[in-house]
């Protein structure tokens, strides 16, 4: 501990650029990470506002507030903003902050590329949000952009496609940066199997991104040429096939789901050991499980489209491969349980969010198992049951893990503690809100309510009202999160060098707050050995 502090004394007077230039021309991984996180937070609230428009309209039967076309735009934009604007940038932001600190590197390997990949995002989302104001309105064909419906869009169409292209380029560049950093810049003595799990899951995520974002780009480019240049990839009249789009889209789309959730596995695998005061159980099997989930994610895509009319053999194959994913996922959940077993558990906010992740992600996983059963999926498909399933996986899954990560590392980033009381209040309101919001949607789906509808028959009224109440509780309690973070950064108590006494990893060997330039000289082998996973 002492040697790290001395190694970094010069950091107290490091020269950071000031003013707007610091951010526009940022090459420092911490600055870029912060920008990613702030960007994600803004988009999270924008996407959340759209979700509240949806839930407000669905509070009661009848159309009270918005036109059905605008409602469809809201569902479409909500998904695009949350996936590409909130969750993915938040993960990239966390990777920017944590990967160099955790592997003992001074910065990301490609700092200027890093700057470029961030600054693409504001332009991408400006294009996308502009569609709200063009004739014909924002895209309303669902985020899955199924043709022929998506081809009916008005002027928003090219804007949406180009926005997706930009997001894709940004993600690929970010992913390349992570891969190069992890492969080339680990401190001496830090083998791949000594890395914290967050780095591992991000490494796997990065490969997924590089593999599938070009597929999405290809799919939307084909839509573009179908719309403007007379091709007929997906138009039946020219001999094309609308179902082919779904195959291509979900070949991207399913790995995308794991892009959103794998880093969450990493974060939770850091936090649970810390607050159980025990090393992670089965480190290596966690790594292998993550890798097999990533592999399997490439061969399950058609389970999103069982109702398009596939050959029997295809249905059986995709049912079995989908069920198989439950195995490595189960291994992970069991390993987390075993990590807590015979530990010494305390319940600080990051741990609370991780525990909620554990419970609620498992619920989402179990409903996913149900969805894999093809004949039953003929009932579940495109109903609110699916909506409940993927929101359980993505909100208390990915989003809670992001929040857990922010609470966990905020003291290290800012040098100040957050207010534990308000943090806990935020946690309880979020957890209660999210369950009141999404649990009734299981009932709605099973009772026969299709998704993406702006109005419903009166038999669905009760649970929709409950769900909307939950949405408003959850939505407004997120303002607390902003307050907690703001309050901590402004006037929180000074955090000690190890805010969590049993946290392990090179990130915790750094002084608090982490200096602007950390690990300019690589940590010594002793420090690495002390701070990393050893077998």
């Amino acid at each position, binding site marked *: 501990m002492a040697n790290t502090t001395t190694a970094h004394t010069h950091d107290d007077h490091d020269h950071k650029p000031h003013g707007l230039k610091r951010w526009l021309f940022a090459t420092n991984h911490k600055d870029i990470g912060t920008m990613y996180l702030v960007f994600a937070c803004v988009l999270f609230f924008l996407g959340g506002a759209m979700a509240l428009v949806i839930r407000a309209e669905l509070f009661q039967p009848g159309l009270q507030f918005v036109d059905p076309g605008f409602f469809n735009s809201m569902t479409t934009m909500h998904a695009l903003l949350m996936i590409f604007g909130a969750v993915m940038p938040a993960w990239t932001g966390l990777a920017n902050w944590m990967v160099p600190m955790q592997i003992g590197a001074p910065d990301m390997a490609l700092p200027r590329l890093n700057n470029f990949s961030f600054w693409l995002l504001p332009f991408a989302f400006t294009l996308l949000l502009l569609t709200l104001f063009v004739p014909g309105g924002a895209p309303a064909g669902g985020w899955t952009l199924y043709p022929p419906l998506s081809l009916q869009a008005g002027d928003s169409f090219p804007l949406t496609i180009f926005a997706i292209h930009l997001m894709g380029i940004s993600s690929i560049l970010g992913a390349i940066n992570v891969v190069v950093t992890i492969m080339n810049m680990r401190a001496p003595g830090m083998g791949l199997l000594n890395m914290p799990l967050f780095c591992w899951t991000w490494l796997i995520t990065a490969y997924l991104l590089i593999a599938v974002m070009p597929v999405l780009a290809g799919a939307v480019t084909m839509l573009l040429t179908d719309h403007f240049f007379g091709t007929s990839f997906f138009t039946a009249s020219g*001999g094309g096939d609308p179902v082919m789009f779904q195959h291509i889209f979900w070949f991207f789309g399913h790995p995308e789901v794991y892009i959103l959730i794998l880093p969450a596995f990493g974060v939770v695998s850091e936090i649970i050991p810390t607050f159980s005061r025990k090393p992670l159980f089965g480190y290596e099997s966690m790594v292998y499980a993550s890798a097999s989930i990533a592999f399997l994610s490439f061969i399950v895509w058609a389970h999103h489209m069982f109702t398009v009319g596939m050959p029997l053999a295809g249905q059986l194959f995709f049912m079995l491969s989908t069920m198989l994913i439950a195995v490595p996922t189960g291994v992970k959940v069991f390993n987390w349980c075993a990590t807590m077993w015979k530990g010494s558990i305390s319940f600080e906010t990051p741990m609370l969010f991780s525990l909620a992740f554990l419970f609620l992600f498992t619920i989402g996983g179990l409903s996913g198992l149900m969805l894999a059963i093809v004949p039953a999926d003929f009932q579940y498909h495109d109903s609110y049951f699916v909506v409940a399933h993927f929101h359980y996986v993505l909100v208390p899954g990915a989003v809670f893990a992001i929040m857990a990560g922010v609470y966990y590392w905020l003291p290290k980033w800012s040098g100040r503690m957050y207010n534990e009381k308000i943090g806990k209040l935020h946690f309880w309101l979020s957890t209660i809100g999210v369950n009141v919001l999404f649990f009734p949607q299981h009932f709605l789906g099973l009772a026969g309510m299709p998704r993406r509808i702006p109005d419903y028959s009166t038999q669905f009224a009760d649970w929709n009202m409950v769900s909307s109440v939950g949405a408003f509780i959850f939505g407004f309690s997120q303002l607390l999160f902003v307050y907690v973070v703001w309050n901590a950064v402004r006037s929180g108590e000074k955090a000690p060098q190890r805010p969590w006494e049993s946290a392990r990893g090179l990130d915790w060997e750094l002084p608090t707050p982490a200096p602007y330039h950390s690990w300019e000289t*690589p940590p010594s082998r002793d420090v690495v050995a002390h701070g990393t996973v050893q077998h």
Partner: protein
Amino acid sequence: MNAETPIDPLHRDSSNRKLTLRLLGFALGAFGFGFALVPLYDVICDITGVGNPKDLLRASTFDESVAPVPDENRWVTVEFIADLPSVGSWTFKPLVTEMKVQPGKLYVVDYIAHNLTGKDTIAQAIPNVAPGKATPFFRKTECFCFTPQKFLKDEEKVMPVRFVVDSHLPKSLDRITLSYTFYDNSTRVAALN
């Protein structure tokens, strides 16, 4: 891999150049591979026998010179459906809606199309066989769906489809639906020419 061995700047320059060239080569290779995929797919299809366009064509057509072996004991119902696009004015329908056929025997069914658009135009029918697994066993020897059809103003055409149901049709099927979706392609064809 790690920063322990110092690298002298001169050496680094040349190694950077080498890396750049290698990456450029890789990028060109990847680009080339994209184009090479077109013939490569054909090769793969030839080897594995899957999805080869020639095979598919052979499966969907039938050589009438080869004497078919009818399966006298089996009857399969074939339904005929016609679908019209949502633009343009046409009449398009099969003259019979259903036939009982024997696998291996050659049959003819007529579709009738009438151009009511008020102008000369080009149309194309897109075939579809349900259930999907019957597709390779439903063979057309002559079909108006093979090529775009020219229609004069107000022209009415009777268009035959000659077909054979392959005697290897799986026993789990007793009914095949042949559907045509009829598209007025004048705008698309004009755009392509």
